[in-house]
């Protein structure tokens, strides 16, 4: 195969990749939403005699420490993990973009005040702060989503601000200003579109980071609490059986991997299209 053909095939694959990723994400979201219908077993159906069963036709993903069907747990875990990843990323992105754009465009004391607030939030070490907060609140899943989201908007704010500042200095924005466009219009029409690629990158990374942050909290015993399943806490619980019952770690791990992969591909596509 010539280099040329290879490149063409590669380019075609690259064009298809975002579509495949979007389809994958959609499938994940739909199956998470339909988990009660799709799941072959009840969420809390214990079977102590058949614990740690290997994957089979009866249990496609095998069973866990309590003999619960792992496929069922992965489906229900998807609801929690996807919610934490996506919603927290959206929360982060919205707050971050608003704060960053305002600060970057307005400049002056507004910029100062907003950036110092960002600094304060950014200054407290994140995981330790979340660990303490989780110990205080013993949070439910919705609260945990909010906490992870609130803990992650500062990077987006700073990146967006930097982009806005450098865009504002460019000719076409100056031109728009010169012809008397209102600040809101300038930001929305001329500045934000330019910021979008960077914001999209930050957001897609935030999805994965949210899911991973939950698993780190699980590692210290303050994440999503059993019997509620999340991919993070399933992976954590499987840590000691990595050699003897690898499927317990494989399936939740693979789901985290695929989700982050898909989000990145979609984010790439958004970035490329808007750029």
């Amino acid at each position, binding site marked *: 195969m010539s280099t040329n053909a290879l490149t063409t095939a590669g380019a075609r694959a690259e064009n298809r990749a975002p579509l495949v990723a979007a389809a994958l994400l959609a499938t994940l979201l739909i199956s998470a939403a339909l988990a009660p219908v799709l799941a072959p077993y009840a969420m*809390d159906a214990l079977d*102590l005699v058949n614990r740690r069963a290997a994957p089979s036709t009866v249990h496609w993903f095998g069973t866990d420490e309590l003999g619960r069907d792992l496929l069922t747990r992965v489906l229900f875990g998807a609801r929690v993990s996807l919610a934490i990843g996506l919603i927290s990323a959206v929360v982060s992105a919205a707050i971050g973009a608003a704060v960053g754009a305002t600060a970057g465009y307005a400049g002056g004391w507004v910029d100062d005040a907003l950036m110092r607030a960002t600094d304060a939030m950014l200054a407290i070490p994140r995981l330790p702060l979340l660990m303490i907060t989780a110990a205080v609140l013993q949070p439910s899943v919705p609260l945990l989503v909010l906490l992870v989201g609130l803990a992650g908007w500062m990077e987006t704010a700073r990146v967006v601000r930097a982009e806005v500042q450098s865009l504002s200095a460019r000719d076409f924005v100056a031109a728009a200003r010169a012809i008397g466009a209102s600040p809101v219009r300038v930001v929305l029409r001329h500045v934000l579109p330019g910021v979008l690629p960077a914001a999209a990158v930050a957001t897609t990374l935030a999805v994965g980071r949210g899911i991973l942050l939950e698993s780190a909290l699980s590692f210290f*015993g303050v994440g999503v*609490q059993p019997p509620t399943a999340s991919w993070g806490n399933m992976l954590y619980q499987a*840590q*000691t059986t990595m*050699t003897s019952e690898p499927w317990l770690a494989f399936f939740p791990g693979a789901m985290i991997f695929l989700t982050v992969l898909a989000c990145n591909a979609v984010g790439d596509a958004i970035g490329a299209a808007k750029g």
Partner: protein
Amino acid sequence: MKRLLLVTALAFVACAKEKSASAVASNDLLTVGYDREPDTMNRYATHILEDIESCVVEGLVTNDEKMNIIPVLAVEVPSTENGGVVLRADGGMDVTWKLRPGVKWHDGVPHTSADVKFTVDAINKGDWKPESVDGFDRIASVDTPDSLTAVVHYKEVYAPYRLQFVRGTLPKHVLSGRSIDAAADYNRKPLGTGPYRVSEWKTGEYILLEAVPNYWRGAQFPKIKRILFKFLTNTTTRINQLKSGEVQMVALVPWDKVRELRSLPAIRINQVVGNGYEHVTLNQKHFPPFAEVHVRRAMAHAIDRDLIVRTLLDSLVQVVNGPIQPLSSAYEPDVATYPFDPPKARAMLDAAGWAVGADGIRAKAGVRLSFTLITQSGFAIRENVSQTLQKQFRDVGIDAKVRLIDGTSISGVWFAGDFDAMLHWWQQGADPEMTLFFASDRMPPAGRNINYFRDDTLTAMLYASDRTADERARITILRNAQRRLAILIPELPLYNTSKVDAVPVTLQGFTGNPTNAGPFWNVYQWQMTAP
């Protein structure tokens, strides 16, 4: 650049291969993976586990693997029979400790009755923070008729007197006139009489103990020259190091990790029945239906303890029926039991007026039989057992919601009485005292009666046992108390807390220990033999 890095990395990797998990035969060094770093080596200020401390500082007594109290720095354990304990007419009691002659502190100064007196005085003076003054606060004074005799005058009869000096004595010649809290030299490297002394304490990493040259039991002891305690707080890391041979021993292996250690050829699993029990505490104050004895009995019948032990606990523990364990001389085997019997449980609840509602949960007079069961997070066995209990309670129409709370928070929660039911254990000392856990006036903050359970007959029995110095008479009272407890079943006993230690197959003399005295109680005898 990357290739350069890779090459460098490989070079370092190749430099030396770690020891693989093969059998160890050398008496030079024993490496122990330890789950925490002690805050201090001062035995009177340390928490529960005293494994490292007990290698350095010896008590006047200790207890062996069968929970017999045996003398160490004392010649014998005082009792009414041997004349060591005399009840005074004024209601007090005198205990005479005869010290072993020829014992010297590691610096060569003789260990004497003055050290015993100094220890009592230092603790009662109260200008430092020993974690427990239990028993010491009942001592009026100590006389030292000669250098090897200490007579302890108690203000009242104190039944657990035998374990008064289980944590040893403080060296008077080192600590006299000083603030003990601030005595960093002693608290980090205590002066003891034991087979080892602290050679190096590298904060956050390890404590290295080295054998002392002239141990009082003879120059042939201890056999092992150095013991290294590596602090590995993460359980998986500890187990991984055992697999790779970087540590050769792990004390107190969690039960769910034992299975994967059995396949390691260099490791022997040592198991002793522990002196503690896992149970479900039922807080009557916070969830009033628990005050009904029929509800408590029905719950006991609803639990399949045998199934839980056989599956989740790999049969490493035994089902138990009360707070005093078979090891104890005060154990009463013949008590009321509650075998797994869901139909009986349902019938009992029906008869007590708890009818099944539309949602499948029982209710009476508008109160649903629905409560929250709390337990410690990050403790895999408890997470699994609590979810199994949830299922088994649900099968008889009782709704339990599991809530996991981290280990530190949960102590605060139960001490405040702010929970319905809790799955946890009590780890006990060798003395069979139960007053603190079941007497009516011992609810927090005055004690640990967190069932908030009230029974005047039982309370009277428990206080009577505390004021009985004669061991046999005391045991009779305690046995009656256990029978009454089993009938009233204020909490649901599940199983005994076995202590499982992973040790090298080549280690001789290791027995384990059921109490907080810990497995190092006879460390001077340990030795490695050729496999």
